[in-house]
């Protein structure tokens, strides 16, 4: 459980969120993406295909990271949301703020 980051041949950093993204671990995600930015990475895909639930702190971390990446000329996208997770983005209207793909493969193909 936790976060893992790999970078594909096209230079897209894929961060898998396994388990929860909540107040207790959001800083780990922020650190992981910041390290990528520090190494010059600008395209990030947050893969939630193995994510259990996300709380408002987790959503806030994604908003904060997306802004940080955008300010450096990059983009952060999200993929793999199940119906429950997607409903959180829809309720909070964050689905209008993020590029959300059904699967990581689809997101990578169009990134």
């Amino acid at each position, binding site marked *: 459980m936790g976060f893992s980051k790999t970078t594909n041949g096209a230079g897209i950093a894929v961060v898998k969120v396994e388990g929860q993204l909540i107040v207790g671990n959001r800083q780990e995600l922020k650190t992981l993406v910041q390290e990528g930015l520090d190494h010059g990475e600008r395209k990030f895909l947050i893969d939630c295909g193995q994510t259990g639930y996300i*709380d408002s702190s987790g959503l806030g971390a994604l908003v904060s990271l997306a802004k940080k990446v955008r300010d450096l000329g990059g983009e952060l996208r999200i993929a793999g949301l199940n119906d429950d997770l997607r409903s959180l983005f829809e309720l909070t209207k964050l689905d209008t703020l993020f590029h959300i793909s059904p699967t990581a493969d689809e997101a990578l193909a169009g990134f």
Partner: protein
Amino acid sequence: MDDPAAPLRLCVRRTPSRAGAPESVALQLPADVRCVEEAVELMARHCCAGAPVSSRTRFRLRVLLAEAISNSILFGAGGDPARQVRVEAELTDQQIRLQVTDDGPGFDPRDVPDPTLPDGLARCIGRGLFLIRSLADQVEFNDQGNTIWMTLPRC
């Protein structure tokens, strides 16, 4: 100060002699965000045990618990692990009624702005209470604003 690495303990009360009487579950945890996930899992697992609870309700239950507990830890108890947050659930066959209490000064839930308005959308904070109101069937506060009750179906 409680050790955040120490296991949390549930206190379960049953009244088996009275058919249909609610069962109650209680948990006290230090105001440390590292304890949230374990507290959520303990409470959620017990709330769902022995009942035909749908995956949608299980999800709502976990998010509601996570939101209310982390709000109490961060804003009620100021993230001070020496202070405590108390979580209770009253269970009937039909319903789960959650209660989360901290020892802080409380807040006025009417003062919390709608995070879905255009000027709030890009903010990094302020979605917790909105999610609670969206996911629970019923939400109530005490007058002081340091106890919240959230109700959802047990199915």
